[in-house]
């Protein structure tokens, strides 16, 4: 089971549970190692001196009560001082850890922005190149026509049509981006998740059958209803199923399952396709990340799912071993926090 992806919902590092988990683990180990390296002596003193002195006190009790009193006082004093020292050092270490975490989040945010801009640039560059080329060609043709006095405008029109088509392509990309950025406030309704999954699966069935892919449902009939945004959930489920369908080969298998897990309702869409390479697993929810050939996917599907699920107060994560398929896991709260629900339903 992977860690939920949005442990720190406001951070930019929420994209992928696995990477974040290992980052924090690494951080914790590094902090521990540094603590021992810098303050090893103090730690040893903290653990060894009090018991040693206690033993002395016990021994001294049998000699004179006054000596025992002095020794006991000394023991308490030393213990107190060393404990305080340790505490202050621990809080320093904690501060350092927090600073490091923030740095890490910041750098991950920057990396995400970098990738995003590269994605946009890449998507828009191709149509722009074509537009430039066609405009140049049209100008050349018009120049020729001017010189010779005979005009063949069919080709010019053709060029202009191409320019227009490419502008539309750019417009499509920016519109998708705008959709992506627009925050749609969820509208909460009682939702039968099994029904939604079944409905969306029926949409996928036909296309799946062309590819000889079976879409298996593993849906319990006694699943509790969920208060969530129905069309947004449909969008997420349909996107994940389509994504799975693209990932599997002919004869592949997709399994859609749902179950209640404590306070959460969990939906899993699993496929036995090519899986996700380890170096890509923390990028799959990034906007514009795609492994499909250019023109065949904008790389916005999964990042949109991420945005939608987070908007529904849920979590989305992925588990995958290359060559053994991938499982996308959506976890939604069975009870919405009152803060969120209040504005919509009272």
């Amino acid at each position, binding site marked *: 089971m992977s860690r939920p992806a949005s442990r720190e919902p406001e951070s930019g590092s929420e994209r992928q549970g696995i990477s974040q988990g290992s980052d924090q683990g690494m951080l914790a180990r590094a902090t521990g190692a540094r603590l021992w390296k810098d303050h090893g002596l103090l730690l040893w003193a903290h653990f060894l001196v009090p018991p040693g002195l206690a033993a002395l006190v016990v021994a001294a009790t049998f000699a004179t009560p006054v000596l025992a009193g002095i020794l006991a006082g000394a023991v308490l004093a030393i213990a107190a001082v060393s404990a305080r020292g340790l505490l202050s050092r621990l809080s320093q270490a904690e501060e350092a850890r927090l600073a490091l975490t923030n740095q890490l989040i910041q750098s991950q945010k920057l990396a995400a922005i970098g990738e995003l801009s590269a994605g946009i640039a890449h998507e828009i560059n191709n149509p722009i190149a074509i537009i430039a080329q066609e405009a140049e060609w049209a100008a050349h043709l018009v120049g020729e026509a001017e010189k010779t006095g005979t005009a063949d405008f069919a080709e010019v029109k053709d060029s202009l049509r191409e320019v227009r088509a490419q502008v539309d392509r750019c417009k499509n990309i920016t519109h998708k981006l705008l959709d992506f950025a627009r925050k749609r406030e969820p*509208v909460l309704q009682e939702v039968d998740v099994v029904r939604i999954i079944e409905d969306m699966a029926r949409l996928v069935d036909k296309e799946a059958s062309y590819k000889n892919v079976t879409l298996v449902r593993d849906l319990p009939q006694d699943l509790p209803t969920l208060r969530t945004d*129905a069309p947004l959930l449909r969008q997420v489920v349909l996107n994940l199923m389509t994504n799975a369908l693209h990932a599997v080969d002919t004869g592949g298998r997709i399994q859609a399952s749902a179950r209640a897990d404590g306070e959460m309702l969990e939906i899993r869409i699993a496929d036995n396709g090519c899986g996700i390479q380890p170096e890509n697993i923390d990028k799959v929810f990034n906007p514009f990340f795609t492994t499909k050939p250019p023109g065949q996917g904008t790389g916005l599907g999964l990042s949109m799912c991420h945005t939608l699920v987070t908007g529904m107060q849920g979590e989305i994560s992925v588990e995958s071993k290359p060559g053994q398929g991938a499982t996308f896991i959506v976890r939604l709260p069975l009870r919405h926090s009152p803060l969120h629900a209040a504005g*919509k339903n009272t």
Partner: protein
Amino acid sequence: MEINILLVDDESDFVETMVKRFGIRKMPIDSAKSGQEALAALAAKDYDVIILDVRMPGMDGLEVLKLIRERAPLTEVIMLTGHASLEAGMQGMNLGAYDYVLKPADFDDLLDKVRKAFERKQLNVKARKQGA
């Protein structure tokens, strides 16, 4: 409470049956045979739920959906399709359709979806009033 429903489909047999079936349940519905007709009807009346066929001659269902979302963002749209086209389904959902129903649609199922879509519209209206 009465729900204002508009059914948009070029198949007149299907439309007739639907109008009859909704009528039996004391739910009068309007119908339109094309996207243009639907948009004209929408300009004249505030519909709660529009049931919209994807494949129609002339204006494509997805195109109509886009315009409905622009002109009447509170109106909920249920897409209807004869052949399960995954691409159209994805586009429809991404454009903000409430649900997607495959033909031949089970009537009770469709009715249920219409009620849910209407409930959502009312919630939206309420939220908007509170926000204003």
